């Protein structure tokens, strides 16, 4: 991160989280610049939720620190939460409170509260105002959480898998809200999601966690630019061993019916051209990978190093 602290909305500084002997996150460091939409990706159990809990000041990391706007999240949680909007993985609230009561409760807590905006959103999401929270559907709970999170006009929005359990229509509505928020207020967003297609369209920066370690932390465009699926016909010389292939930094190489296929993480036109012309590889072709494919290549069963 070249940006200095003032530009960082949040910063994980060598954060390690352990549960007994289980390590949930190991020395994770990354920062999210102000105005950025950062997607933190990982399979279930990769440590996302632990990191988010640290960021929200709900858990104290065993090592390192999570800071928000330059302040330690654990020590200054209550103060920082005034500037944060949170949509938790499993939205929760006192079960007997209705959406209206929850909004009224929240309005007392924040220095600026956009009550009208909350009402509008709830109406748009068709979340009933007088039904206890416990009786709302999963999607409605998420939408209510989002409406409440946006109601405080946050500087930083933390969305922990907000699309989980949402149907297509609700998911679209959520992303539209997010677009509006970004366009209107330039809010910084930290997002985790399993909806990689949605993330791909929204995020400008991606972090990928695997088994508690951060494999990737870079702009989405850069990430996509360096990943390709390379397929080629095999000849006598094993191209895997060739220097040209090594230059492409292959992650996984497998035998396909028509030849060989490799996912490379160090793609460049020049390197590929050298590989295509190198002896041993014939009919080499490079095809782009979606974020989902990159994610699977990194975190799938046989996924490897970045």
């Amino acid at each position, binding site marked *: 991160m070249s940006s200095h602290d003032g530009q960082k909305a949040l910063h994980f500084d060598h954060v390690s989280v352990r549960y007994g002997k289980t390590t949930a996150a190991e020395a994770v460091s990354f920062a999210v610049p102000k105005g950025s939409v950062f997607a933190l990706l990982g399979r279930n159990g990769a440590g996302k939720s632990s990191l988010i809990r640290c960021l929200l000041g709900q858990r104290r990391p065993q090592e390192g620190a999570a800071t928000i706007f330059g302040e330690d999240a654990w020590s200054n949680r209550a103060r920082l939460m005034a500037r944060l909007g949170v949509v938790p993985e499993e939205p929760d609230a006192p079960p007997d409170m209705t959406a209206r009561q929850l909004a009224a409760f929240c309005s007392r807590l924040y220095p600026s509260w956009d009550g009208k905006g909350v009402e509008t959103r709830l109406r748009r999401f068709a979340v009933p105002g007088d039904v206890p929270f416990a009786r709302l559907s999963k999607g409605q709970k998420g939408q209510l959480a989002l409406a409440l999170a946006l109601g405080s006009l946050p500087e930083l929005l933390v969305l922990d898998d907000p699309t989980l359990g949402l149907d*297509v229509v609700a998911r679209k509505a959520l992303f539209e809200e997010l*677009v509006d928020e*970004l366009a209107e207020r330039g809010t910084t967003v930290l997002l985790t999601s399993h909806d990689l297609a949605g993330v791909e369209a929204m995020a400008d920066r991606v972090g990928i966690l695997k088994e508690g370690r951060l494999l990737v932390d870079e702009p989405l465009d850069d990430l996509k630019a360096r990943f390709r699926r390379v397929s080629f016909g095999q000849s006598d010389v094993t191209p895997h061993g060739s220097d040209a292939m090594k230059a492409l930094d292959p992650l996984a190489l497998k035998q396909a019916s028509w030849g060989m296929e490799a996912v490379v993480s160090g793609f460049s036109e020049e390197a590929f051209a050298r590989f295509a012309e190198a002896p041993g590889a014939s009919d080499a072709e490079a095809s782009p990978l979606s974020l989902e494919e990159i994610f699977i290549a990194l975190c799938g069963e046989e996924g490897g190093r970045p």
Partner: protein
Amino acid sequence: MSNRGIWVHPELDNGDLVYYCTDTVMHRAPGWPPVKSRETIGRGPMQGGFAMKRRLTVDPADAVPIWRQIEEGLRRLVASGALARGVPVPSVRELARDLRINPATVAKAYQRLTEAGVLAVRRGEGTFVAADAPALASGERRRTLREGAERYASLALTLGAAKQEALGAVTTAWDGLGEKGGRS
């Protein structure tokens, strides 16, 4: 100016492409169900909106960055004349909402286009296709044309179409789009 809003038809929203109609440019496409609810989602003279969005699609999964897809798509639309010079383009927010992408991405594309002289910002009015938007450079134009033709030819071959049949389809499509400013 109220009739200059952009109306979205929720039932036509299939989740991946939003159809817009504006009072001034496109009232209703033949065969569309009637507009039921009217919700203003943006304001301003949006003459370019409909035409552009139908032709501008982005694929977030593509290796090409989204901002570059928008930039190239708009360049192509302007160069081909699908977007007339001087017409307004959708606002950053509107396009981002429509494509469900990060507004910063759209802004980046618009900024690059503005810097390149394709788009022009009129203070307080919005962004417009520049009156003197440069045409596609001949080299790129040729290359784009060739790539498109290759893709189409490959598709036609896969479908087992004869060359004449394929060319006929091109002609028909050409004529269909011609009205919108294509050079017949």
